[in-house]
């Protein structure tokens, strides 16, 4: 399997361990990623607040680059995934708008064709029949005894029309992956909710409350760790967990893993190789379970 990898900004910035573990997972699985080095930020649904056409032009340019590479595009961030799909939908559903966007792109030498490449989150790729078979073949260290709580990230689920999950209100894609890795999925209500990150600068208390409710729900359901497909969720749930812990009477403490870290752990890589020592909430308590 070979894909154009759209890394997104956060995997290159505050969650570099996501990039590291993505490349290790790919290495272990024999997936080839060609990094899209000239692709811009997806705008995270924020650039479109300022100028919707600008956001769509930037993302149409990104998709056009994958088209030029002749490779399906893979994202490693729920937000990037949802935002690129939104642009694809805006541009594909309105020929006049598509022409407008392509006029903006023209001078840069890119043209968006549409319908040529698939835009998928890494979790979606692993969730295909082919991906699951590959995983099954390559697992070296089954994560037996590890109870994992999926946290999907809003943008891969809603709007459901753009989601690649079969039942976005009750998705099972990540949990299917957990099972093949040998871990035990924990189903809890908050797994499809918002982590609060988008308003962390605007309404900190509400943001931390959202994250806290989700973490407590996961803990009460017996999870050893939360696993997310979105680096922004990771920041909200991990980097800010000390604040969240303080806000909650009961307190809360639980390690947060990126999905590719969990995958690569099962492929036999060590926590250090996957940047797990970079997390704010220590992941060492998982070593005992996995020993």
């Amino acid at each position: 399997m070979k894909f154009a990898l759209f890394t997104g900004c956060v995997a290159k910035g505050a969650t570099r361990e996501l990039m590291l573990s993505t490349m290790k997972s790919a290495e272990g699985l024999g997936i080839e990623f060609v990094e899209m080095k000239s692709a811009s930020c997806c705008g995270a649904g924020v650039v479109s607040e300022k100028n919707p056409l600008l956001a769509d032009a930037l993302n149409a340019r990104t998709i056009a680059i994958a088209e030029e590479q002749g490779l399906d595009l893979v994202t490693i961030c729920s937000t990037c995934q949802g935002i690129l799909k939104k642009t694809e939908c805006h541009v594909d559903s309105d020929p006049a708008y598509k022409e407008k966007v392509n006029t903006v792109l023209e001078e840069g030498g890119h043209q968006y064709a549409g319908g040529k490449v698939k835009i998928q989150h890494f979790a979606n790729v692993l969730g295909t029949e082919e991906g699951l078979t590959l995983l099954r073949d390559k697992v070296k260290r089954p994560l037996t005894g590890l109870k994992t709580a999926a946290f999907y990230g809003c943008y891969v689920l809603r709007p459901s029309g753009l989601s690649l999950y079969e039942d976005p209100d009750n998705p099972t894609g990540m949990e299917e992956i957990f099972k093949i890795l040998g871990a035990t999925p924990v189903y809890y209500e908050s797994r499809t909710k918002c982590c609060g990150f988008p308003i962390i600068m605007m309404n900190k208390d509400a943001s931390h409350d959202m994250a806290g409710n989700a973490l407590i729900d996961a803990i009460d359901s017996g999870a050893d760790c939360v696993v997310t497909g979105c680096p922004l969720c990771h920041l909200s749930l991990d980097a800010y967990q000390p604040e969240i812990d303080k806000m909650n009477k009961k307190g809360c403490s639980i390690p947060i893993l990126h999905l590719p870290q969990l995958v690569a752990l099962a492929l036999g890589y060590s926590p250090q190789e996957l940047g797990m020592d970079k997390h704010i909430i220590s992941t060492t308590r998982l070593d005992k379970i996995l020993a």
Partner: protein
Amino acid sequence: MITFKIKRYNPEKQAEPYFEEFQLGETDDLTLLDCLNQIKWTLDGSLTYRMSCRSAICGSCAVKANGHAILACQKQASQLVKDNDTITLEPLGNMKPIKDLAVDFKPFWDKVDKVNPYLQSSKKPPEKETKQSPEQFKLIDDASTCIMCGACYSDCNVLEVDDNFLGPAALAKAQRFVQDSRDGETLARVKELSKPGGIWDCTHCGECVERCPKPAEPFDRIKEIMTVALEQGVTNNNGARHALSFTKSVKSSGSLNENIIPVESVGFFNVKGLFDLLPVGLRMLFKGKNPPILHKSIDDVEDVKRIYMELSE
């Protein structure tokens, strides 16, 4: 045969709500509302819920089915059954239950009132009508379809933690007037809507779009208000500063500079705000998790800059 697991509540008899199960045999072609009626007429006359039009127009019958808000009259019961042929029904969320599936809509209506949901203009009314072009109408068409059912309000992730948030329906209603060419108070409106509890408190969860039975889809309307607010220069708040800083960062390097955004979002002169950023910043620094100080540009950032210029950004 479908089992309806319904959350019952009657504070006059019992303080705590409880679930009660009802079974119906013939449910083919019945909407969920038809089923509720069957239960009420044949099994338990005390079951309480709201309804009127039976055709997704009045907005009365929204309830939570299997954890998500829907219009009971708009969905076939057979489409909703889960494992064991069961449908779990609860009152809408984020509002206080009054009895069984009926909730108190007062906070919902109060918030709609708060956005002044009527045209405001100091101009003398015209002799005849004020004409709207198709383009002008298109801007307010989607929001106009709202039937005030409260499904969005029920499932909004921010309202679960902050009552102060105006919420999706009121904000969608606000957009309908912010972008109405006949309204004269655009600036005053977006100033008010940019305050805490307004547009910038929306967390992008997309629940309102997912639950809305009409094209009103509040999150998209909220983003339209944001664009107008920025156009109107209402930028003295964290949400607006964040959007501007983010957009600028992508222009200069093609990617996000995470070191700058938080600082620019709270504002350079906001000492308390900056102080609040310190713990998480230091924590990340200690772990070597801070974004690289020298922010790297993408390849061909010139093309991104060109696109910005072309769109006058």
